[in-house]
């Protein structure tokens, strides 16, 4: 393994990109300890690979307005909870997200992940005083690790329940375009359009969600598929028809069996441009 061979250099590039499988990465890192040629190559390509992340930076169009404010409120509130004194015991079941100045909306969480996080932080605030010393910092790190593990487990459960992974993976492939909508995203990939929604409220008996498409040049929407979210509030729906002919996509709540024209205010109307 010590001798350098130029064949390693292609693998070095894949390692810098972060696409080398763990077992190969281990061997290559061992080789790089002794090989200056590969180390130099890695350093050169690493900056290009790191720079790729910058290309993904969300624009104000992709992340703006209410979503932007809500996300910041979530993060800052979670941090405040982290640094604040213990919550009053009588208040221990309240979600630890405080309102500060403007009203902050913590979305109703149907997801398992959030309830676990809330439980963890609630438990945490009940027995800890101030996060000022190292011991407490370690505690926080430990809790964070636990939250992470729970997030992963919850994510796993949700995914297993509902997601058609291979189809979704294809649809998030480069070249696909994503349009943020309330509760999720509309994805256009090649000639296909998919709607992925989370945390959809459960509907009363006899009601379903229905997708609508507005064809280019048309004045009225065309009925598309009806669907109901799974038990976790997830829905992944592919719309029949050709993406190129759609000017906009909408979703509304309709009677079972669907409607010919929307009978309720749409959950969202999203132009695909």
């Amino acid at each position: 393994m010590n001798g350098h061979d130029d064949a390693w250099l292609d693998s070095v590039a894949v390692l810098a990109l972060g696409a080398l499988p763990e077992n190969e990465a281990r061997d290559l890192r061992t080789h790089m300890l002794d090989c200056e040629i590969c180390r130099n190559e890695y350093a050169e390509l690493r900056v290009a690979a790191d720079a790729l992340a910058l290309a993904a930076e969300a624009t104000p169009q992709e992340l703006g307005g209410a979503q932007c404010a809500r996300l910041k409120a979530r993060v800052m509130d979670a941090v405040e909870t982290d640094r604040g004194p213990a919550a009053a015991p009588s208040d221990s079941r309240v979600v630890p997200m405080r309102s500060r100045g403007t009203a902050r909306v913590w979305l109703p969480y149907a997801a398992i992940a959030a309830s676990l996080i809330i439980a963890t932080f609630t438990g945490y605030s009940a027995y800890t005083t101030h996060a000022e010393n190292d011991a407490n910092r370690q505690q926080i790190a430990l809790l964070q690790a636990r939250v992470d593990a729970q997030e992963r487990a919850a994510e796993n459960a949700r995914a297993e329940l509902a997601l058609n992974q291979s189809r979704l993976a294809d649809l998030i492939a480069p070249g696909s375009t994503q349009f943020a909508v309330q509760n999720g995203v509309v994805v256009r990939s090649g000639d296909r359009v998919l709607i992925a929604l989370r945390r959809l409220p459960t509907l009363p008996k006899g009601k379903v969600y229905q997708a609508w498409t507005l064809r280019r040049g048309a004045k009225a929407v065309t009925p598309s598929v009806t669907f109901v979210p799974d038990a976790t509030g997830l829905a992944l729906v592919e719309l029949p028809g050709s993406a190129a002919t759609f000017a906009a996509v909408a979703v509304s709540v309709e009677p079972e069996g669907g409607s010919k024209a929307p009978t309720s205010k749409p959950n969202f109307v999203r132009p695909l441009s």
Partner: protein
Amino acid sequence: MDDASLLMGRVRERDAAAFEAVYDAFYRLVYGIAVRMLGDTMAAEDLTQAVFLKVWSSPGAFAGGNFGAWIARVTRNRALDVLRSRSSRAEGEIPADVPADGELDEAVFAQLDGQRVRSALAHLPDEQRLPIELGFFGGITHEEIAKRTATPLGTVKTRIRAGLKKLRFELEGSLA
């Protein structure tokens, strides 16, 4: 030391205002990577919160260097965790994490922004850009890239290397 590194010094002292400034400077990057990799705005928000909570609760994890590059790697590695947990793929089909504290050519990186990188990427031929984007944002290994693009593995690796070299060249050119 750049602004973000100075701010992180204050975050270590539990300065919430400094943390807020760090958030304001980097949330678009963190969220953007997350949504690109996970393809889901809600999951991307969850990931963004997790990353920034990590910044707050373990600021010592940032050991210096370029903060933007660091938080981008942390975000990507976390998104890989999510993809792993969603996936039934075998161990060998999942790429290794890239260490968040690696060598980095600070002089080049510090001057870059999204617009420069997007335009440099646009200069790559599709056959190089596609496997690079799949590997970085798709969270899949070179073997999976080869399968999906119906290209021999050796060719995929060579194209990734050639593409990254060209990308670096273009990026340096854009700074000249």
